[in-house]
């Protein structure tokens, strides 16, 4: 299972999608969230409170710093490279998935998604991280 006591950083330029993700996480028992609208802001928030975040759920297609750019920054960072990172995408193209895996994503979720799908993706992610 996964630890619902952690704080989740939710990154999406669409307020509605941030709301959907947070609502779904709440249904799974998570209570602490930080939400921002792009990868640049997410990076700033992480640096401000590095100890607080235990999981990142991030959209792929965003203006300014995209999800994949933010992921690459995270994986290149000494402080945050172990953080579980799940990408949200509206597309399920093989080339996109391959790029995300090569960049070090732990999992990805294709929109639209249900709470059950999110739960399964979280379980898979944590099983991979803590086998």
């Amino acid at each position, binding site marked *: 299972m996964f630890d619902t006591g952690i704080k989740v950083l939710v990154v999406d330029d*669409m307020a*509605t999608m941030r709301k959907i993700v947070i609502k779904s996480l709440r249904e799974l028992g998570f209570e602490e969230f930080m939400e921002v609208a792009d990868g640049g802001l997410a990076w700033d928030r992480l640096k401000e409170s590095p100890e607080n975040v235990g999981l990142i759920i991030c959209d792929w297609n965003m203006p300014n710093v995209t999800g994949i750019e933010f992921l690459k920054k995270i994986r290149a960072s000494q402080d945050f490279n172990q953080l579980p990172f799940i990408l949200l995408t*509206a*597309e399920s193209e093989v080339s996109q998935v391959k790029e995300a895996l090569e960049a070090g994503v732990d999992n990805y979720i294709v929109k*639209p998604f249900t709470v059950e799908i999110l739960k399964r993706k979280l379980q898979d992610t944590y099983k991979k991280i803590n086998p």
Partner: protein
Amino acid sequence: MNRPKSIIDNIFLTPFLCGVVDVFAVQAKVTVTQGAPQKRHAPDLDLSIAGSLKLDCEQFSGTVNMYFSKQVFLEIYKGVSGEKLENIEPKIEDCASEIMSMVFGQAKTVLKIHKYEFKPTIAKVLRGDEIKEQLEKPSEGVIVPFNSEFGPFYLEIIVQG
């Protein structure tokens, strides 16, 4: 070399129609039924908001829009977010573009099998006069009504002319 003429045939249209049904069922938990595709016309309904997205690839150039009345949009927003509101506030407008993006994402995956390689695009929101302008564009295209328990809404595909 000239670009081939953009054509809206069953192969092109069906993935969008299936995308609508799927996105509403999964994300908003709303069952919708598709009506018959028709030649473009302005629906006889007060449309308050739309999600709009440019379509651009070798075989097709145009726009896809989804139009909603206030009532239908607020019910769909309630379905996706759990929040009940009386009016379409600015903070929830992006629900229209997010739905459009998800429908396009589903359609794009299927259309890729048929060799449509769309350029990256970001959906936007239309309100007020922008909706009127879009509906009055004298371009070729189709409009497809969908029915939900809260009322109808529309998907429109316009060929760039």
